[in-house]
């Protein structure tokens, strides 16, 4: 069994394109000109905070119907949990009240998928990061790794699931758009390929530079995400984590993982050598005596 593992790690380290890695690190390491990641552009200048997306999401995924008493209010931080995959919050900013929808960011190179040891978290070719029920062992390492704190765990279930937005992957495969995008009455959500969405965001900012703060959140955050945000104010005013690094998170463990095959080759040789060397010394000492 040790040999199996060693071969695995050698393949991983020496070629750097071992099967699993290529898949997990996403399209950046496997360029495919015909396939582009889908993305959603969220324009917080258009959002009216009506929560249609929250309702659509709950209906689509069979989650409990949202409590309508619990609406976005300034000063109240609503969070996603095991029963809701997306929420809207209201923020008091320099230009008045601004709404922000949050959900999984669908990173290009997701930390959660590279953290998952059973490949339950999976970056699909279409762009959504999905969670695959039968593979998961509930270790919650995805939650530790996710810089946006997205995956939620059912702490009160004997057979717990991880809940997170999957960009309506099943609808995407049928050629439909995500439920929240379809149901948004204010057209705050736009769906398309990531390239198109970035172009659309740029266009809106060019057309009305007075309205927008000149930044696309998600273009470079965590190496680039499939949810893109544009806003009238700087993003730290509306509850975004602006300390997110601009390179991908799996990058952080790469150095360690690549050192594994080296150690696996060098250590045993070194240890065996030391063993032989010290054995000879002892034999000599005994002779001298």
């Amino acid at each position, binding site marked *: *069994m040790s040999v199996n593992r060693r071969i695995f790690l050698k393949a991983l380290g020496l070629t750097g394109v071992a099967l699993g890695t290529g898949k997990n690190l996403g399209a950046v390491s496997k360029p495919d000109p015909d396939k582009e990641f889908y993305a959603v552009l969220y324009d917080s200048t258009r959002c009216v905070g009506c929560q249609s997306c929250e309702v659509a999401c709950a209906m689509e995924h069979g989650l409990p119907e949202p409590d309508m008493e619990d609406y976005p209010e300034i000063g109240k931080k609503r969070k996603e949990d095991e029963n809701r995959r997306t929420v809207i919050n209201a923020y008091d900013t320099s230009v008045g009240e601004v709404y922000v929808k949050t959900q999984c960011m669908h990173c290009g190179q997701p930390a959660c998928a*590279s953290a998952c*040891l059973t490949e339950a978290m999976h970056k699909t070719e279409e762009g959504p990061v999905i969670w695959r029920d039968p593979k998961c062992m509930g270790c919650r390492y995805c*939650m*530790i790794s996710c*810089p946006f704190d997205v995956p939620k765990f*059912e702490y009160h279930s004997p057979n*717990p699931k991880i809940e997170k937005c999957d960009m309506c992957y099943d609808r995407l495969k049928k050629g439909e758009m995500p439920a929240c995008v379809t149901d948004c009455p204010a057209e705050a959500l736009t769906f398309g390929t990531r390239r198109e969405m970035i172009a659309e965001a740029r266009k809106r900012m060019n057309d009305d530079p007075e309205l927008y703060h000149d930044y696309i959140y998600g273009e470079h955050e965590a190496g680039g995400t499939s949810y893109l945000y544009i806003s009238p104010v700087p993003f730290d005013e509306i509850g975004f984590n602006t300390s997110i690094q601009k390179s991908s998170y799996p990058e*952080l463990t790469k150095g360690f993982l690549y050192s594994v095959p080296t150690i696996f080759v060098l250590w045993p040789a070194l*240890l065996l050598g030391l063993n032989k060397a010290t054995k000879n010394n002892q034999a000599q000492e005994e002779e001298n005596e």
Partner: protein
Amino acid sequence: MNNTSYTITKDHNTRKPVWKFLVSELKPKGKIFTPFNIISAPVILLGIVIIVIRFAKGIGSVTNLTQEVPWGLWIGFDVVTGVAFAGGAYVITFLVYILNIKKYKSIVRVTVLNGFLAYVFYAGALLLDLGRPWNVINPIIGNNFGVSSVLFLVAWHFLLYMIAQLVEFSPAIAEWIGAKRTHKILSGMTLGAVILGITLSTLHQSGLGALYLMAKEKIHPLWYSEFIPILFFISSIFAGLSMVIFEGSISQKVFSDQVSDKNHKAHNNIVLSLSKICTVTLFVYFFLQILTFIHGKNWMYLNTPMGYWYLTEMLGFVLLPMILFYYSFRKQSLTLIKIASILTMLGIIINRLNITVIGFRWDAATHYIPSWMEIVVTLTVLFVEIWVFRWIIRRLPVLSEDPNWANKN
């Protein structure tokens, strides 16, 4: 008294079939109502009840874990800290089998046994923390190889290292049941198992630290650095050795009937030289911590509550025990060594918890504080491990001398 009963069973065993011998060994030896038993038995019973609730109603019904802090005491203490303490096994086998230093031979078996049990029980504690422990076979049977995951590496290494340690310990089992031919084969496998074991230990001791590399913004900057894996590896050396010193000082007293006079005298000498290794590795660790601190430009955090806590850890639980170890070696003082080893162990607990629990999401509005049930389950795991350890020590030639025939092999 134990010694005599031990020799009697040995004589019997040459005639009795193995299974009958094993059944006779199951009976308790020694007193039943000791202070340790009176304390540990109710805790274990309570712990079992809590574990049943945990499997019936989910992890949230017994723990205080939150969506922001998904790993608590069971991972941070049982697994991450426990495995560091089990590091003594690979260090001592390195000294005995790789560097051929015979001086440490008398403690190699008890250390390997301790390491093995630690891994079995802490990996067991890991299963309690998994939401769906039955799927733990997924990354092992090969249908889901998440090779880009550090946790995948750690999981495989736990499994392989447990096997390696079992092989290292197996001659003692063969001696116990009197299987002479098997003993010869198993002893021949020791060097291979040791080499594999040290390699695995290097990688998964550091791997436990590497688990937290992706939680870059979640861990307090004073504890997060890209050098976590190296710091974890180096600290596992003195953590393991401090455990060996601490456990040895207790075992030598509690199981004094098992230890021969010769080994008892040799033990003091062993402890003194281990304290030398502790001094050196603590120095390297302290030096690296300073480098990491300067490299991370973390000066502005020092004058904050977390900064004072950091200084307490570094000065009180790294620098101070290092000086004590050095001083106790110069003075040949065993008492000082014991104090230093306890301080070092406390330092390791503090360090691992600072990364996994205390400094994890230090800026969150609500902090995770383990529930009393989490603490009881942790104690249950620890106590059951000690029970099993004691059961083995009383029966197998671990602290006691090998039977004569085994030495000829």
